[in-house]
């Protein structure tokens, strides 16, 4: 009996850091290698969470891995990030997280105090987010084989009534909303690494966005699609939407909320804030007639005061995200290729 492996189109000879950065290279890895080999050759659009029907009930499931250096940073740590990231993936898929399984890969030599601190962060974040940690696996690897610890999670949740986000529901004319200022997390991590020697009044925005998502579910606001702009930032998330739908998205530069420190860091380092990760925000595409109402709901919900409408969906330019400025011109903003790197030119 012979077996035929599906062919795959992935041409890179080895895996590089770029494949994990969340931009184009990651997309190639998923579309051209993981898709054919893991998910079947007709890989559907891969959402943040998978919708499953189990014994007659609908559940959503998601999985994520957390590799962050330094482990602790202003506003959070790998433990709280792991909870928030998983809860948020489920939330933007329209689900309320109920349970988490947490896997730990620990580097031998890690101090117990360090591990205990992360377990406390995990536990506290889970409690605050209303989700139970129900199990998981722990492995220890040799010194040098893990940056102290890697955390991966499996989260399971139930659909929130009133929400059924999907790229297929997005229409020209829909508005794009963001729940608050972008880039806090990414810049905090960059500065926390210490290589750049900058100090800032800034901390990670790591938090659960579930309360904000649930607020949208209660009002008839026609949520079409949601995504949390983590690795690769707003630009990558919206480029994925534009690519999946073949529609265009136009953002207004002046309307994108940014904290001063994030803006300054980006100017100093030559970075585009639209490529910087947030871990406590989400993008929502809302039908035009409901956009103002949705904005109002978010702003009245604790944690949503800085929500903004930042742009809209159009027929053209197909598959492309543009940022328009107040001068009447615009620029294309693409998915991130690799990690955002500071520049001097």
């Amino acid at each position, binding site marked *: 009996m012979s077996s035929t492996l599906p062919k795959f189109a992935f041409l890179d000879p080895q895996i590089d850091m770029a494949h994990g950065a969340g931009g184009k*290279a990651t997309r190639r890895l998923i579309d051209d290698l993981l898709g054919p080999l893991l998910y079947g050759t007709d890989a559907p659009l891969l959402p943040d969470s998978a919708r499953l029907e189990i014994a007659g009930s609908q559940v959503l499931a998601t999985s994520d891995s957390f590799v962050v250096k330094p482990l602790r940073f202003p506003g959070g740590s790998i433990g709280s990030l792991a909870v928030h990231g998983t809860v948020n993936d489920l939330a933007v898929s329209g689900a309320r997280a109920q349970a988490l399984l947490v896997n730990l890969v620990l580097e031998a030599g890690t101090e117990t105090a360090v591990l205990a601190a992360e377990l406390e962060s995990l536990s506290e974040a889970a409690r605050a987010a209303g989700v139970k940690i129900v199990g998981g696996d722990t492995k220890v690897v040799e010194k040098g084989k893990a940056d102290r610890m890697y955390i991966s999670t499996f989260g399971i949740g139930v659909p929130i009534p009133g929400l059924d986000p999907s790229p297929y529901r997005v229409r020209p004319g829909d508005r794009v909303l963001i729940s608050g200022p972008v880039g806090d997390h990414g810049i905090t991590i960059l500065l926390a690494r210490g290589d750049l020697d900058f100090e800032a009044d800034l901390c990670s925005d790591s938090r659960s966005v579930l309360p904000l998502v649930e607020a949208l579910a209660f009002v008839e606001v026609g949520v079409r699609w949601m995504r949390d702009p983590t690795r690769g930032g707003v630009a990558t998330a919206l480029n994925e939407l534009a690519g999946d739908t073949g529609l265009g998205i136009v953002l207004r530069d002046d309307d994108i909320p940014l904290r001063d420190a994030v803006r300054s860091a980006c100017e100093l380092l030559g970075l585009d804030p639209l490529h910087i990760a947030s871990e406590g925000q989400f993008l929502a595409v809302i039908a035009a007639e409901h956009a103002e109402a949705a904005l109002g709901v978010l702003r009245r919900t604790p944690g949503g005061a800085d929500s903004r409408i930042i742009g809209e969906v159009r027929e053209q330019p197909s598959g492309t995200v543009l940022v328009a400025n107040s001068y009447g011109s615009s620029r*294309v903003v693409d998915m991130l290729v690799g990690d955002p790197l*500071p*520049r001097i030119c």
Partner: protein
Amino acid sequence: MRFVDEFRDSALVAGAIREIHRLADPRRHYRLMEVCGGHTHSIYRFGLHELLPSNVELVHGPGCPVCVLPMGRIDDALSIAGQPGVIVCGFGDLMRVPGKQGTPLQWRSRGADIRIVYSPSDALQLALANLEKQVVFFAIGFETTAPSTALTLMRAKQEGVQNFSVFSNHVTILSAMRAVLDSPDMRIDGFIGPGHVSTVIGCEPYEWIARQESKPIVIAGFEPLDILQSIIMLLRQLNVGESRVENQYRRAVPQRGNRAALQAMADVFELRTYFEWRGLGFIAQSALGIRESYAPWNAERRFNVPGIRITDPKSAQCGEVLKGVLKPPQCKLFGKECTPELPVGALMVSSEGSCAAYYQYEYRKTRIAARV
């Protein structure tokens, strides 16, 4: 942000644009070259070229220090990085530039100790914090950056730091401009001059462009209003047949330049007899090498580097694009064999290289039907 936001004001931008439209003589076609990659970046970031009348054309010049760095020099740096006990550090701009066997980032993922620094002084700090390692700073940049490298070398010498050296690839902007002006196909009417280089060298070194080449040059800042005002100043000169050096960036550029910076550069560096510029070939007296008095801190003396010349494929027309003779999409490889993800020439690798900037900001727009 002060001194930034006011120079981005949209009402003032609208006024400047109106003035440009008023000044541009419809019977003429003006070709203005912005020399500096930072200007190219600003122009695309703010879409300034879209706001100009169609007879005012901006041509992107060779002022991108990553773009003009020969591939062989990347390989030299990587061969140093491949040696045990060595940390090579450089600016983020360098990390994705391909050498023959990969980019610095790829070498890092294979185990080489390559780090990104924001400042050459951070590289020196790294050396002080890692005395058992050799730390090499991969220096690039025009005269804006060279004085900072110079001060760092002076400090290293002063403190007798034994484990620090610099791999110098600093080049001079005027050589690049001369290469452009010497090109027989060149059709540039005026120059938007490099504002930050000029904070160091002042305005006088550009006089020969105005006098001998009869081209006006306006030293420009980097915000939208700076660039637009500089275009206004150039159009005014061109309309009456003048060619002078003007300083638009007076809030930051002193007429005579920065004495301390020039002195530091003179102490530490000397002009190399020849240096190869990617796309432009060998140019005499165009690059900064480290003086004998700083030999112990010169990475090219401390390490044996292969020094192999790697030429770009003949089909890559980087030189012509660098000199403004061709526009990026006119190069046969553009968008096909040569893209930002798989760059053949360095103009596609650096994000403010003409080809990468064009690809990123323009190409995708012109390929699709509607406009915003």
